[in-house]
């Protein structure tokens, strides 16, 4: 019987009673969270990397703690902790400053959680990339009278991109896959809706394979864009064999 449903392609139809539409909406959710979390993580990462490289000793140690903890604790545990404690703590803080509680949507919480995890990873990637920029390039900028902010925006950041892009693109692929972990907190992204669909129809193999194909497609499409971005960022660099 399960063998029948395994080849029952009708279950994947976009319109109900097919579950294709549900899966696609789940995928959309996953992509939204991945994009949001990635962008938030990148912003954290830029601050983190500069904090770690140029901050005072205390800031540097705090950043070190942040990246160490995130890199030592499984994402799944972090996601649980942040999902429950993070929003709780945020509301506590808001309460203290007297703004009152805010209603944190699952989407926002998901973005926050993925963002915090990604933030630590991209801190490390960006820090490595900034350190790879030849010191002379930054020195030259200073020698011609650029202010520290100008040095950062005009030279350091653009010059480190080629070194950062491979790492950052891997992080993007990781972000898309980490959204699956939000299934354990009941957020209806692709993996959870897949499980619901599979549970409701008992066509496990079909739905898990379908979801796998969607994730894979997302990865492959991302790879195409990554290639383009990489090529663009490496203009000005002699190709290394």
């Amino acid at each position: 019987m399960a063998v029948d449903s395994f080849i029952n392609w009708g279950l994947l139809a976009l319109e109900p009673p097919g579950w294709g539409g549900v899966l696609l909406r789940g995928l959309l959710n996953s992509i939204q969270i991945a994009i949001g979390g990635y962008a938030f993580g990148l912003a954290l990462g830029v601050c983190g990397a500069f904090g770690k490289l140029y901050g005072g000793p205390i800031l540097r140690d705090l950043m070190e703690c942040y990246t160490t903890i995130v890199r030592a604790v499984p994402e799944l545990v972090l996601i649980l902790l942040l999902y429950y404690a993070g929003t709780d703590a945020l509301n506590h803080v808001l309460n203290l400053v007297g703004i009152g509680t805010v209603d944190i949507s699952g989407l926002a919480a998901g973005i926050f959680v993925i963002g915090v995890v990604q933030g630590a990873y991209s801190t490390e990637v960006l820090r490595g990339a900034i350190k790879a920029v030849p010191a002379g390039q930054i020195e030259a900028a200073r020698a011609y009278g650029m202010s520290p902010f100008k040095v950062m925006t005009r030279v350091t950041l653009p010059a480190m991109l080629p070194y950062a892009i491979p790492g950052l693109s891997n992080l993007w692929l990781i972000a898309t896959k980490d959204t699956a972990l939000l299934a354990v907190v009941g957020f209806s992204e692709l993996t959870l809706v897949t499980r619901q669909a599979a549970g409701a129809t008992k066509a496990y193999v079909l739905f898990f394979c379908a979801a796998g194909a969607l994730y894979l497609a997302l990865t492959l499409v991302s790879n195409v864009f990554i290639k383009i971005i990489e090529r663009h960022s490496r203009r000005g660099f002699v190709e290394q064999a």
Partner: protein
Amino acid sequence: MTDATPPDVTTHAMAILPEDLPTAGSFFKPHRIVLLLIAAALVFCVVWFMRWDWLPQYLPRLGHGIVVTLAMLFSTSILGFLLAVPLGLVQVTGPWPLKTLASGFCTIIRGTPLLLQLWLLYYGLGSLFPQFPAIRHSFLWPYLRESWPYGVAALTISFAAYEGEVMRGAFAGVPSGELEAARAYGMSRWTLFRRIWLPRAIHRALPTLNGETVLQLKATPLVATITVIDVYAVISKVRQDTYITYEPLLLLALIYMCLTGILVVAFRHLENRIPTRGA
């Protein structure tokens, strides 16, 4: 003559590595004492004001859970690595059908979430097995009934795919001169592989292997979602039994930090055994 390949940037960004450990000498600085005091106060608050009365009752189970986690980690890393070597090798020298197969395998596994692979194996494949009486009555059934074989399989496959990529790079990166020297002294292909190419590739890949193993540790809690009782599952149970939200999770984070720390220190020892010069 630097030969220490830096670990893959992403692995480094995601996993603590031996080089991240502070040395005792560089660690103590004036402001650190203040930070340590604040941290100590924080820990004190956590211990004092939060609920820990459940802990003694669950200690034996936690111990058991840690053993399961470590068993998962070591068995899947070793099995995965054994698979990764041929996966990497055929991508470097194999005939094209094998090459395509291996790189396709790596792409697919690396392109989909581990959680999904785990569920596909356990709920998908696992629910197909009982429909075949031949399987149901074979000697394998007592194992196929359990959930841990599926966890081991999924983690092994995933590790093999990630490590296969690493080994591909490592095999390709062994300087051709060293292989040529081996050939010039009359080594057969198998001796060359066993004595020079493989150890040299592992030597090169060691920093990345370290990182990937830490990542593998971080992936193990996923098996709790298919009813394997690892340390994560024990903590879930504590939470569900007691309805305490944060304390068990904090303890869990601490446990994983300790496990990671131990792993990293072990790797530092391993790395120091074969010195490499340079950056």
